[in-house]
């Protein structure tokens, strides 16, 4: 329990640093929020008024505190592109990204486990699986995404090329997660359609993290298979498969779990790329549009959201690890 509290305190510290970093970046960016607020053709008097109103004539520290209290009240400033609060923009696109991210995370762990099982069990063809996945991890996500579109949409026509659904009257509430909403609304057709739209982007974004997670698992599994307790289990007559699954796998979970936390960063970056390719109406597409319009509040808003998700996820992973292995709490 004390570990969870300490970890939570550290998390708050990191989150605070994140806000400081983003605030500092806005200061050095050279864009003038007053100009954005008052409009490009505003008179000097209007600019000064906007400056005073936004608190820009104050010293840095009060400005930061003002920014921070704004964040705490859910104010992520106004987008220069959409002219609406970034917070409400993001709230509208966040569910789509969460849905995709959850699928990517699930697939990354699943693929990573399968990959490590294939490698560690020494099954025939393990070397080939290894080689393919290692090269796959070196492929940029955008290449994977575009090749997937080319093959599965362009040539085979099996899967759609983009978007969340092609059903016009798909339910939009109450959760915003299409998979959940379609089930709640009793629409299996929409559910199936949503799944076909999810497959390609989710797999493409999952490959890089899956290889990283799989690699850590392989290391753990092979080390454990050579360990004394595995020898004892074999001597007791357990099959190699049982030794692997029951005795080696459990001991290898800790490092793999922390890899999941670390890979969340790659996962989020992959998400941004994949959303752009598959026209997924989420945070990544919002970011892409913000970048194209040089909309700094929009960009920092996305960076803040992704940063918070990453930091919180890592704190949760650390706490989960201690739950799984109490000895870690001492370290």
């Amino acid at each position, binding site marked *: 329990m004390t570990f969870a509290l300490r970890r939570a305190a550290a998390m708050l510290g990191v989150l605070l640093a994140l806000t400081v970093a983003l605030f500092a970046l806005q200061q050095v960016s050279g864009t003038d929020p007053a100009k954005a607020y008052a409009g490009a053709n505003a008179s000097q008097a209007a600019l000064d008024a906007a400056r005073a109103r936004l608190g820009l004539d104050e010293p840095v520290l009060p400005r930061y505190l003002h920014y921070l209290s704004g964040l705490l009240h859910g104010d992520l400033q106004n987008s220069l592109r959409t002219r609406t609060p970034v917070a409400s923009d993001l709230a509208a696109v966040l569910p789509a990204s969460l849905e995709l991210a959850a699928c990517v995370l699930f697939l990354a762990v699943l693929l990573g486990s399968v990959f490590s099982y294939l490698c560690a069990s020494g099954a025939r063809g393990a070397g080939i699986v290894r080689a393919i996945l290692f090269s796959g991890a070196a492929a940029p996500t955008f290449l994977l995404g575009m090749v997937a579109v080319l093959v599965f949409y362009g040539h085979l026509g099996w899967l759609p090329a983009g978007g969340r659904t092609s059903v016009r009257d798909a339910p939009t509430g109450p959760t915003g997660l299409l998979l959940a909403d379609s089930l709640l609304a009793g629409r299996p057709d929409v559910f199936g359609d949503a799944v076909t739209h999810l497959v390609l982007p989710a797999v493409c974004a999952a490959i890089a993290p899956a290889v990283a997670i799989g690699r850590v698992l392989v290391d753990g599994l092979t080390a454990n298979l050579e360990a004394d307790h595995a020898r004892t289990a074999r001597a007791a007559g357990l099959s190699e498969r049982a030794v692997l699954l029951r005795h080696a796998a459990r001991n290898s979970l800790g490092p793999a779990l922390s890899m999941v936390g670390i890979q969340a960063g790659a996962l*989020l970056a992959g998400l941004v*790329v994949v959303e752009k390719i598959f026209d997924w109406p989420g945070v990544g597409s919002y970011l892409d549009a913000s970048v194209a319009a040089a909309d700094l509040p929009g960009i920092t808003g996305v960076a803040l959201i*992704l940063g918070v998700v990453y930091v919180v996820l890592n704190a949760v992973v650390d706490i989960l690890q201690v739950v799984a292995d109490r000895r870690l709490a001492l370290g």
Partner: protein
Amino acid sequence: MTALGSLTGGRRRTATTAGRPHHVVAGRLALGALAALVLLALLTPVLSPHSPVLRSGDAFLPPGSAGHLLGTDALGYDLLARVLYGMRASLFAAAVVITFGVLFGGLVGVLAGALPGWADAVLMRVTDLFLALPGLVIALAVAASLGASYRSALIGIAVVWWPLYARLVRGEIRAWAARPHLEAARQAGVPWGRRVVRHLLPGVRPTVVVAASQDVGGLVVALSALSFVGLSSPAPAPELGAMAAQGMPYLLTSWWVPIVPGIAVMLLAVVANYAGDAVRDLLRRR
């Protein structure tokens, strides 16, 4: 940035496969291929068949067309020329980021490892803070704040990459400082600065070289992702990620326009990863 670092690091090779001839041959091949790519990058202005930013033929010529080995893009620019310049930019960017990371991160690491406890604590807290944030997301925010350009993308990645080297160097320094020859040097009255430079740094060097060589592939991919999202030079600058992004509308009609730059990134990354492993194996055998 741990996220991408892990793509290149952590590859495992058991003791039984480590010194085998075929492995050495593969390593030499990888190092040779990397050397060839670097040479290609250096000689690009001489070798490039066309200008990367001038129309040199019809639009959408497929690969293998006369005079355009990799075809042309939507504007009739030669793709081979653009890919060559793009790979040059990628390799140069990786070199800059790694150099900065080794110098700055290394300095922080040396100071943290060699200075008394409180300085170590402060430096490592700051480093940990950087490592606790999602690297690519921060890089993206930095690059966007500075205004999309090649330089901004470099700065963005460099800002999040150095802490990895700081941690690594600090750990190595601590380990080496505990060895008897350092104690001997101290007893012999060798001054602090000289002890660090002459007795600690040589021990740290192999580890840093290995880490740096294994980072190239991940860096090339990370930079191409930033460029793909539009946070590097504006069009028509020949950058691999941006080329792929700008070619995306033609994916289904002229696949080579967006795919060829992506393959170039992958080629660089695969060669760099294998070469990184070869460097590690070479240094480990010594």
